[in-house]
């Protein structure tokens, strides 16, 4: 099955995360809140007449606090970050969330002067 080639944009100080479908750069889009949460949206492609095309341009969310996994729709195609295996959208986002939360914890520990383990 064809995968969605994905990249990540993240602004850590305000927890603004976007998983972008790189092949749809340049497409206009509208946000569709995930489970009525305006802080998490699927970004749906629209054509020149503002009609939805059915393709997903990205997912924008405050990822560190996101927990409404049951509301995330199942998409047909797996998503793939460079160097990772293709994953269903929810599995990929959960893995990224885990890594980002760990990263934040390590950064806070480092700022407190506690050395993070090497390796």
């Amino acid at each position: 099955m064809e995968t969605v080639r994905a990249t990540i944009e993240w602004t850590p100080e305000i927890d603004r995360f976007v998983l972008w479908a790189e092949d749809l750069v340049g497409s206009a889009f509208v946000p569709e809140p995930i489970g009525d949460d305006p802080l998490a949206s699927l970004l749906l492609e629209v054509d020149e007449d503002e009609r939805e095309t059915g393709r997903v341009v990205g997912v924008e969310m405050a990822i560190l606090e996101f927990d409404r996994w049951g509301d995330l729709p199942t998409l047909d195609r797996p998503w793939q970050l460079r160097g990772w295996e293709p994953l269903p959208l929810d599995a990929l986002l959960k893995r990224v969330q885990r890594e980002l939360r760990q990263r934040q914890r390590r950064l806070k520990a480092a700022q407190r002067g506690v050395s993070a383990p090497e390796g």
Partner: protein
Amino acid sequence: MLYPNARTRLGQTVADREQASFGGESPKERVERLLGEGTMPRRAVEQAERLWRERLQHGVEMPNGEIVRITRNDLYHAIIDPRIWRHPERIALAIAHVFEIRALKQGRRQALSRWNEGGQELLAVVILEGGPRLWSMHVINEKRVRRYNRAGGEVLWKQSERP
């Protein structure tokens, strides 16, 4: 026990290592990459940067009197939609024409906006981070205004109806 400046250096080192291993980009890094790949028009980005320097970096006032702060990274995040990169002034217009603000989680807020461009009505949803700082801004349609009305929390401010 580490000296304070050693802590700073350690923090930066850890941050750099984490960023590299994770592969994520800041909005600025992403736009620079897309410009390099030719998938975003340089002229449009330069126009948006000029608007930011001249106007947006000083903040934009909402009708309730609050000034919304917009960092350069916030600009790069907003202009990914071509409807914004072709008209970056829409960032300021959306903020200046907010008509309702609702509460969200973690001190964030959702603002809905409506304005007129050459006889065409445009709608936008603006998400604000505490400060307030621009978290995101999207052009939407009436259907989505209704969706956001259902989704948002308590109404914090609403523009009075004109007689």
